């Protein structure tokens, strides 16, 4: 049978334990009418599996409503999975007690999309950075000051004294985002989840933040999940790219291989739709699928992309959900086009 789950390239030795392992994760939200009548279920995350190793960056690309943020929030424990499991260093999160959750939360940092919305406006920089330490039992003032100094230097909010007593509104967008990163880093996490960390920033600042995150990753050997809708930033950042559509991961590829040849028709469309700055663009039209992403309350039968896909195989794509096919060592896609001939 060709229907084998894809084993993605693992440069790591066999026995190494992934920092994060997600197995067949489902997060569904119930829609209720008038508070008690069940009106349906939104399948925000519908069967997602992957592994993330120490020091690795995975980019998750997709459009709004494809489940990217739900995935992040489920991993963070903000949403509870309906089905499936998340393993952090081989421990199932559903087995954790209160203390275990506390420890888990301090080893996963979260970088939000809108830095201004993520920072409490009434707290000074110092208090914002002290808060996670207070919650996690680092009450020694000296230790707190030492960590604040260290983390602010790392994110280049220097000279530190200039920033400590400022409030978020006194900082520029880039500085706010660096403060958010500092807050995520202060407890020494092993994993960072960055949900569109640069989409609210200007182009000139964007690169600075991405390079900063890259530097932190190298220094602390972090695992990073980088969630974005912008395919053009991922090449500078990640080793692997997952593309999501309709609450599922539809392609898992090594970054270089994907940039050379995206496999899933949806990833190809995303690729085509991204404009590089080039005066030649003026002369031609883009070949992109029209239509809208599927409703997650009532997803189409078969492949969720088939109503918009130009390479649809009638009778197969609209009937049966494609499993993940392995295309080569570096690429895999959930698309019937890659079914091996028997």
């Amino acid at each position: 049978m060709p229907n084998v789950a894809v084993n993605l390239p693992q440069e790591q030795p066999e026995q190494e334990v992934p920092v994060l392992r997600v197995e067949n994760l489902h997060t569904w939200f119930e829609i209720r009418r008038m508070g008690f009548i069940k009106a349906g279920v939104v399948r925000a995350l519908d069967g997602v599996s992957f592994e993330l190793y120490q020091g690795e960056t995975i980019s998750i690309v997709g459009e709004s409503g494809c489940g990217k943020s739900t995935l992040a929030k489920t991993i963070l424990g903000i949403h509870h999975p309906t089905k499936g499991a998340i393993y952090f260093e081989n421990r199932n999160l559903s087995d954790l007690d209160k203390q275990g959750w506390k420890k888990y939360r301090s080893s996963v940092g979260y970088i939000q999309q809108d830095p201004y919305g993520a920072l409490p406006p009434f707290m000074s920089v110092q208090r914002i950075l002290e808060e996670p330490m207070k919650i996690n039992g680092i009450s020694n003032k000296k230790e707190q000051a030492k960590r604040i100094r260290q983390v602010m230097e790392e994110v280049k909010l220097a000279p530190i004294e200039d920033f400590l007593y400022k409030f978020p509104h006194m900082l520029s967008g880039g500085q706010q985002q660096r403060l958010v990163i500092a807050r995520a880093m202060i407890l020494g996490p092993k994993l960072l989840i960055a949900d569109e960390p640069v989409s609210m920033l200007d182009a000139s600042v964007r690169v600075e933040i991405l390079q900063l995150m890259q530097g932190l990753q190298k220094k602390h050997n972090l695992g990073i999940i980088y969630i974005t809708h912008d395919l053009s930033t991922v090449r500078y950042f990640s080793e692997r790219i997952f593309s999501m559509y309709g609450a599922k991961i539809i392609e898992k590829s090594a970054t270089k291989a994907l940039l050379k040849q995206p496999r899933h028709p949806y990833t190809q469309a995303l690729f085509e739709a991204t404009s590089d700055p080039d005066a030649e663009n003026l002369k031609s039209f883009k070949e992109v699928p029209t239509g809208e992403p599927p409703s997650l309350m009532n997803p189409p039968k078969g492949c969720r992309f088939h109503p918009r896909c130009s390479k649809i195989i009638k009778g197969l794509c609209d009937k049966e959900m494609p499993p993940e096919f392995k295309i080569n060592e570096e690429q895999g896609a959930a698309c019937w086009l890659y079914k091996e001939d028997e």
Partner: protein
Amino acid sequence: MSKKILLDVKNLKLYFRTRSGSVQAVDDVSFRLEAGKTLAVVGESGCGKTSLAKAILRLLPRNISTYSGSIIFDGEDIMKYSDEKFRREIRWSNIAMVPQASMNSLNPVMRIEDQLIEPLLLHDRHMSKKKALDRVNEVFNIVGLPTDFLRRYPFELSGGMRQRATIAMALASNPKLVVLDEPSSALDLLTQANLMNVLKKIKHEFNTTFILITHDIGTASELADEIAVMYAGEMVEFSSADYFYTDAHHPYSRKLMASVPTLREDKELQFIPGQPPSLINPPQGCRYSARCEKRFEKCSMHPKTTELEHGAQVKCWLYDETGEVKHA
């Protein structure tokens, strides 16, 4: 053959009065735009892109301290028009605007068609409702929306469709110039690409002149014939897209181009350290000089605009009167 200049802006200034001083949002901006061409105004947030659009359409807030210069539109200096004349003859009937996040600006309790015919009926008292509806049907076809959607309410349409509806609204009165303020930045990638296709089609078929305001230099290249780069209220470069994308002149434009990540080509990304100056008391000399790598003594004086050989204009001391590169 001389080409027809549709819009000729000279020394346009728009200052806002605030408690801490006068904000120089648009400072001495001059440019010309030919009929049928698209100008993309790019720059970081807070550089005065939207203020420039509002100054052209005279959509001004109350705290104006300076509003001067000349805007020659189709041969007439519209700055000299009274507010009433401007409203009647220029705004919307000849220059239309699609404001930022306009897909959320539709009235939620009105059907789309009622909103779309409103400007037509207001601007032309002799127009019958039926004729207005016909026209609205026509523009809905142009932007690629099914005409039965006209009877719907805005919440029944997706973001991309609503955005197209507002573009249809701007096109309905057959304006000579359409100002698009970040038309696609709130949309998804595929929707954005589809919208750019629609705009491109309109541009080719109807020879409409556009001013496209955006921070996304990649998307701007889909539509732009000319590029204007704004920095701290000033237009630091104005150049045809052909030259701009291969060889930008102003040091700021170059850095800006170098900071744009590209998908198809591997390049070393750069960022611009520092922040733009405050527009309340901008520095005396070149406003970019504090962040510029090529700064030299002369930069403490305010640079003049220099015209280069292929019509590009640059506000930088690196280029002297003859367009020669100095000190580079």
